[in-house]
Every structure is written in C-alpha cells, then in structure tokens.
C-alpha cells in the first residue's frame, strides 16, 4: 500500500495492557536468565563436543517426533472433529491425558508397554529385533508421546472452527473424504496446523522427564539438551544456565525463521 500507517484505529488499552503484562511475564524471567548468564563461558561451552552433540540430537529428535505427531495426530484430530464416532467425548479427554501425567510417570507408562518386558516391547523385539529404551528412537517415542496432544488439540480446534460447507462443495465435486481432507480441509486450517506443529516441536525440544525415564541418558545417543541442562544443574548451575540459553537461542532462531515462512507476516 502507500507508506501511510493506516490502521483500523488505535489498539484498545484494555487489550494492549494485559497483552503487555502477559508478554512481560513470559519474557522477564528470560531476561533474568540472560543477565545471569556467564557470557564469558559461552564460547567454550558452546564448542565443547558434548554440547554440540546434545544440541544436534535435540533438534533431530524433536523434529522426528514432530513428524510422527503430524502423521498420526492430524488424522486423529480430523477423526475427532468430523467422524461421527460414539464415545468421542471420552476419546477426546483421553487424548489430553498425557498432558496431565507427570512426565516421569509418562516414561514409566511407556516402559510398561514398550519396554523389554512390556507386551508391545516384547513383540517388537521378537519380530523386528527392535528395542526402544536406551536408543535414539526411544527419545523420539518419548517426545512424541508427550508432545502429540498439543498437536491434536490445536488442530481439532482449528477444524471445528472451519466452515464445513466448503467440504460439502468438495463432496459435490466428487471428492472422497480423503481428497477433501488433503486438498480442501487441511489447507484451509493451515494456520491451526502450524500453530499446533510449533507447540508440538517446542514441547518435544524441551521434553525431559519422559525421555530420561524411557530412553535413559547416554551421551551421543539419548542425551538431549534438557538432560544435559538438568545434569549440569546438579554440579554447576552457571553451566546449566549457559546451556539453557543456547537451547533458547536456537529454538527462537528456528521458530522465528520457519514459522513466518509458513504462515506469512
């Protein structure tokens, strides 16, 4: 447009004020963290092999977990929002459960099912020779378990808000429900899917309790950044802060660069 700042009127104080308070509430503790960061240590820390490895592993596992969540979670959200299922209320509440479960207990639950002695774990072992605990795959599983509800619930919310008549139009054009989903519904709820994906990725990246319980902690294989941070906190709190700041910086960079490419402005 023309350079003029033509807004639709001033932003109302009654909205801007709480928004600012909310922003301060979220950002101030980070500022506190940054103020206490021993910046001098940063470079040495950053280039110590352990940190690089943990960072790489974190990004890899969080991204893989996000892929798993999208592949399984978006269809689940769709079934919850559109499928005429009996017991939908209960299923929807069950999906929320991993949110409430303390992550450590979540890890225990995963071990009970997918561990060496768990029924599914035994099958996986005898059929494919796959054992999840203490492996990188296990980290992905633990992160996906914890992060998936975020995706499912965000996407379901978006699907419910979408106009179902546009799907009717697709149906009259001969599109099956799958084609309609893929080409009509999904693109029209893209902002919701992106929001859910961001939540899911960030949650997976910060995941700690379920990971260490289910996948253990072995450098280069299952030690993600949050695990490194936690252990550093035990011996050297300053180092823990440095590591956290590194994790934050990377995630802010990734989110700020990726997200707006998907959603625009």
């Amino acid at each position, binding site marked *: 447009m023309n350079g003029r700042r033509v807004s639709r009127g001033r932003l109302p104080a009654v909205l801007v004020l709480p928004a600012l308070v909310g922003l301060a509430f979220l950002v101030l503790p980070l500022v506190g963290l940054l103020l206490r960061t021993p910046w001098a240590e940063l470079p040495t820390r950053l280039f110590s092999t352990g940190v690089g490895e943990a960072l790489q592993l974190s990004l890899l596992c969080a991204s893989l977990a996000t892929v798993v969540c999208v592949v399984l979670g978006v269809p689940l959200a769709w079934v919850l929002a559109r499928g005429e299922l009996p017991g939908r209320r209960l299923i929807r509440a069950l999906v929320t459960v991993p949110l409430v479960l303390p992550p*450590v207990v979540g890890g*225990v639950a995963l*071990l*009970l099912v997918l*561990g*060496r*002695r768990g029924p599914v774990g035994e099958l996986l072992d005898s059929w494919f020779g796959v054992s999840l*605990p*203490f492996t990188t795959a296990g980290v992905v599983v633990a992160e996906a378990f914890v992060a998936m509800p975020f995706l499912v619930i965000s996407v379901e919310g978006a699907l419910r808000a979408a106009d179902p008549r546009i799907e009717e139009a697709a149906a009259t054009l001969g599109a099956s429900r799958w084609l309609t989903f893929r080409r009509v519904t999904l693109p029209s709820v893209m902002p919701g899917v992106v929001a859910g994906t961001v939540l899911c990725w960030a949650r997976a990246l910060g995941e700690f309790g379920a990971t*260490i*319980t289910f*996948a*253990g*902690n*072995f*450098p280069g294989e*299952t*030690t993600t950044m949050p*695990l490194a941070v*936690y*252990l*550093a*906190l*035990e*011996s*050297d*709190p300053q180092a823990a802060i440095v590591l956290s700041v590194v994790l934050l910086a990377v995630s802010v960079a990734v989110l700020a660069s990726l997200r707006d490419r998907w959603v625009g402005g």
Partner: protein
Amino acid sequence: SSSQEPTRTVTVFAAASLTEVFTAIGKDFEAANPGVRITFNFAGSSALAQQINQGAPADVFASAAPANMKQVTDALAPVTFTRNQLEIAVPKGNPGKITGLADFGDANRKIALCAEQVPCGAAAKKALAAAGVTGAPDTLEQDVKAALTKVRLGEVDAALVYRTDVKAAGAEVEGIDFPEAASAVNDYPIAVLGKAPNAADAKRFVDFVLSDRGKTALTNAGFTAP
C-alpha cells in the same frame, strides 16, 4: 496445639531421599518439643541449594551431597550426619545373573549407572575404579531413583544404587553387596542456615538428628553412621 505459647516453626530443606526418614524424625521431634512445628521442603539437593541462595526462608538444610552444601554460602558449620553406601540392585530373580561389580564391564548386559554429576554417580565411579572395572553402562541416570525404576521394571540387568533405595523398593528388587562398597560412600551434611528465621529451634532439630534417636531412625532406613 499448646495453649501456653504460640507454635514456632522450623523449616527444613531436605534431600528427597530423606523423605521418609526425616518425616519420622520430625514427628519424634515435635513430640519431644511441644510448641515447635517442623515444615519440610523435600526436593533435589541442587534445587534446594538454588532456592536457599535465592533467599528461601529455610532454617535447616540437609543435603544428599557435600557439593550442594558447598553451593550454599550461608550454611553455618555443616556436619556430616549420615552416609549412604552403594549396593548392586538387580530385578527380582536376578535375570542377568549378576554376581559382582565385574559384570558392570560386560557390554552384553544392560547396565544403569548414575551420571557423574550426581552423588551416586560420583560414588559409583569411585567403586568401579576401586574394583578395576571399566563400566559399560547403557544409561547414566539423573538420579538414583531413575536407575532403580529401570531395575524394578526389568529394563536393566543391574544398577548401582544406595542401600536405602534397595530397602525402600521392597520385594521387586534384590540387593547384592560388594566389597568395594566401603570405599564408595556418600556423605550427607546438615547445617543451620545463617539467615534462619528460627535459629534456636533449628539448632535443636539438628542436634536431635545427630542424637541417638536420630541415628537409630537413620540406621533403620538403611543409612550408615558417619
């Protein structure tokens, strides 16, 4: 509550591994000192140290490791009040056929150790060194409870944990003593804090822990005397 004087409170910040035994000792202390109430804050020792350094209103700090006590600048004359000794924990029935520390070097067995940064990991390192074994762990747990959980669920064949933990875990876990354990003990220091709001009663509580009644309770829970 007593009618003569108002209740005074002692706030004790104690390592999570002391939860049961300190709760019992606290009850005893309250019985012996009417008018004083003990409030506990159980959490990881390092978190407690952080909280104290950030001005938490604590009277007493009982840490699971000297290192965390050292982080607290404000501790007055910490003393070691008890120790915890390592033991090999195996799942019920010992499916991995573990006999001693030597098996911890076997790459084919699933082994859990604590991470070096936490006290039980440091102790395990000492024990393995004393036994001349190069450990081949599959995981370095963030605390001893996590290692024990893996034993309980049969995910690992063996782990090095504290005697107190094996004892608390009950029938699901079996303990195997080993000779090098004596060289790998972990000291638990306790101290009254400099800015303690109720220093007098705090001192009394520490003395109570260090008394015979305290010692007996600790020994019953599997701790060894210092």
